[in-house]
């Protein structure tokens, strides 16, 4: 990387003009090198980054390649370390150390229509869950009320709608009767309930360009980014909205 071996000592230099020419060349190459370094810094994603795993709780043991999702996230945001492969298991205990779990079948976290102790424990400790299945509201309410959580519809002010992109609707296939729901624990979103196989839908769209009727592909990808941002940053947008009042209080 270093092209120049240093510059000559002026005292030793016999030809002053030659010396000046050489100095100018040195500094010119240094400027070019700095520009190149700056481009490298911001363009080439740095390696050695901690991975964000895509932990999926599913009865289907085959794990999918999710490099498209990983690329989507890194191209659009500063999050560059989503893993390229799903981490799948049908046992909640095997994924219990992951802070975010995508659940394909809600029965895998229930026992006698109540949250399994490990699922309840995990949510209370700060885990973030995405349930990709249509579930009746009454079932959701009774399941999550056991940990003191509330189930609500998603409105425009929800952090899910504004954590990265400003969304006006959430993607739902035509024919799906239910809406997206959020589960609030400690007044923050702890779980998102999506009434269809969301990961399958978005992977299909990214790989083939095809998506079910009623869903806009752009909206779909944006919703994924919003979900990831909500899981990692919670309700940071509230701070920014209330910034003037907070600063006033601190003065």
């Amino acid at each position, binding site marked *: 990387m270093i092209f120049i071996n240093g510059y000559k000592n002026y005292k030793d230099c016999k030809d002053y003009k030659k010396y000046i020419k050489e100095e100018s060349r040195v500094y010119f190459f240094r400027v070019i*090198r700095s520009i190149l370094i700056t481009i*490298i810094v911001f363009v080439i994603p740095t*390696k*050695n980054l901690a991975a964000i795993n895509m932990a999926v709780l599913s009865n289907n043991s085959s794990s999918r390649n999710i490099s498209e999702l990983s690329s989507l996230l890194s191209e659009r945001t*500063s999050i560059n370390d989503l893993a390229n492969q799903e981490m799948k298991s049908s046992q909640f205990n095997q994924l219990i150390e992951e*802070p975010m779990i995508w659940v394909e079948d809600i029965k895998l976290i229930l026992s006698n229509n109540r949250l399994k102790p490990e699922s309840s424990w995990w949510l209370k*400790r700060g885990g973030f869950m995405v349930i990709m299945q249509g579930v009746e509201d009454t079932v959701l309410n009774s399941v999550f009320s056991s940990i003191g959580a509330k189930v609500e519809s998603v409105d425009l002010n929800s952090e899910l709608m504004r954590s990265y992109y400003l969304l006006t609707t959430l993607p739902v296939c035509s024919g799906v009767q239910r809406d997206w729901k959020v589960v609030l624990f400690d007044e923050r979103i702890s779980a998102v309930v999506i009434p269809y196989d969301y990961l399958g839908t978005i992977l299909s769209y990214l790989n083939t360009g095809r998506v079910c009727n009623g869903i806009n592909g752009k909206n779909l990808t944006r919703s994924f980014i919003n979900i990831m941002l909500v899981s990692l940053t919670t309700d*940071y947008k509230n*701070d920014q909205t209330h910034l003037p009042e907070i*600063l006033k209080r601190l003065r």
Partner: protein
Amino acid sequence: MDFYSVINSNIFIITSFVVIFLVWFVMLYTYYKRRAFIIGICRLVWIIPVILCLFPVDKIIRIKTDFIKENISVLVDDSYSMVQSGYDYKDKIKEIESLCQLRGCSLNVDYLSRIYPYNSMGYTPLKEVLGTWLSSRVGPWILITDGGDSLSKIGWNINYKYTNTSNKGYILGYIKETPNKWIASIESSSLAFEDSPISMFLRIKRNTTKKEVIQIQVMLDDKIVFSQNVDFIQSKTELDVDMSIPPLKRGTYNFKVKIVPSENEQILWDNEAYVNVEVSTNTLGVLHIQGSPNWDGRFIRRYLKSDPKFDLISFFILRDMFDNLDATERESSLIPFPVERLFVNEINHFKVIVLQNFSLYKFLQSAEYQANIVNFVKQGGGLLFIGGANALRDMDIFHKDFSSIIPFEVKYKMNRAENPGFGMFEDMDDDGSGEGVKRGPYYSKNSKFNIELVNLSSTLRSFYDVYDDWSRYDSILKNTEFSGLHRMNNTTLKQDSTVLANAISSTTKEKIPVIVGSHPGKGRALWIFTDSLWKLAFSKESRNVYNDIMSSSMRWLMYQDSRPYLKINSFMLDRSVGSKKIHWSSQLEGGAVRYIDTQAGWQIEVCGKKVDDIMVDSVSSDISIISGSLDDDITQNTCTINIKGTNSVLGYVSVKGSSYLGTLIPDIKKDIKNGSQYILEQLASITHSDMSINGNPYLSSKTVDSWLEQGTSKMDFETKHEKDPFWFFRSWWFYGCLLFIPLEVLIRKKII
């Protein structure tokens, strides 16, 4: 009385008695037949006292052998106020002398005017004299005074140990009965919050008993900020009042609390008291900046938002320069990072800055912003640095401002042709074999490790008291596997930094610093060189591990120490009548006391004046008393002591205290002429003395006569042991036994 030994020693008498009794009984039977048994029993009962003479009891007799006179020290307050009141203390001394003649004691009488020459100036130097006079005396003492004192309102400095009756005191108080009310005590918490009322507790006493309404005023700079009317009911002489002062803005306030005097009240100085209160913000500002979102950021934000005392502002760098938003500005919720506002205008309103996975050089390119963050810490702010892939890049390490607070130095010296590159210290393959790895610190995502707390010395533990909180979770830290670590290759720790915990590599067992504490300038910083501490949130042992560790870290960074390393236990001021000096003393406690030395850079200010010449009296390893004197040209009523200094172990230390500086009150002023029951009560309480006021014992005190009898004269006695055979004759049973004599006669005469 040993039954068997008595039997043994009197065997002949007892045998003779039994034989005589049997012979007599046989004769009785031949004459009285069956009645002989009853007669025999009656005879037996009334001779029991005689039989019991054979069983004497031990008796202790005290015989006086010698007679020793007790010396009693007497201090007479012969000040102007006592003379003017017409009280004849000489008569009282004669009275005590005559009592002493009976009790076996002698008096040593001192007069205040002779001990302290300035007494004649019209001031009563009771406070100035009494402490020294008591400490130089042994044995019981009497003080004759009206309670008048020229330094009425400052505290007593009496180093007097009352142990038992041998050196107990008696105060003969004489005051003219004029109606008086006074503030006996005032309490308030020294710290209050904006938007919250300030609580104060007042105890008011009086020497009258009629029903009256009094007004209490709380004043700031002679303006009334609060007033309250309270009722003194009939016969009550003491009243407790709770007051709630309306909320005030942030700042330090010196309140004057005053009882409005009644019309005929002549003593006014004891109607006022002063109290200091510091009002601080309700909430503590925390600025959380994260370079790129990760799980560690989620959990720290969850913790900070869960604690209502934090006002949290979080900013995340969600998008890099070359990320493609694929949306218009209207479709995205992203806002520009308000760097100017946060890092220039508002930065000093925060208590702690959390820099998480953040490169100053990459994301805050302006030198002014970087310098402001560094200055924020050096001027007393807290910094919680949490590592990650974006943090501590080589450009941060070599930056001239940030490098001054980073807790380590890189040994690697660049040559002149090199510039710090982004990745200079990194092995791009992260297999530990590249050249970059050997040069300096780098982040390794694949490093798996456990955390082990280091053994700290007691001095360091008293400063980093967050360590004691973490040590509760020592086993959990050791048993949790973390990943993602800044490896500190080729670095040396700076002197003002301390390693608090090491990462123990799961494979090589190598120890690498993972949590470091430092105190750059006046501030505090905690450096956590991993981004996987969030895993503690999922600890199976305890739900609160992560929150507790973060909570104690934040508390330490904000100087909210539960065990401060320097605090002021007391601060006393003493204004001398004659010498025009103010003597001050302060008791300090904490780990920092042993380092206080004005010659070593510590600054001490008393009443706004810098003090260089101090005396340090070490009471124990962490308690000292410092004292000194100043010229008495102070005009304000209160005085503050400020102690600050820097130590290589403890960092910057600063503590403040205040006290009331009383003014001299001469006897010739009307309001002191009548004495002070308040002062007399204080004295009796401090010295644990008995007291009488105008000849009447105060509360449960004895009269001076019974006090003299109980605690003064000493007699020597000798004890003797004697046998007492006639002990039964002194009991009531003896008379019962005597009744059987006439009963026997009546039975013989066949009357019964």
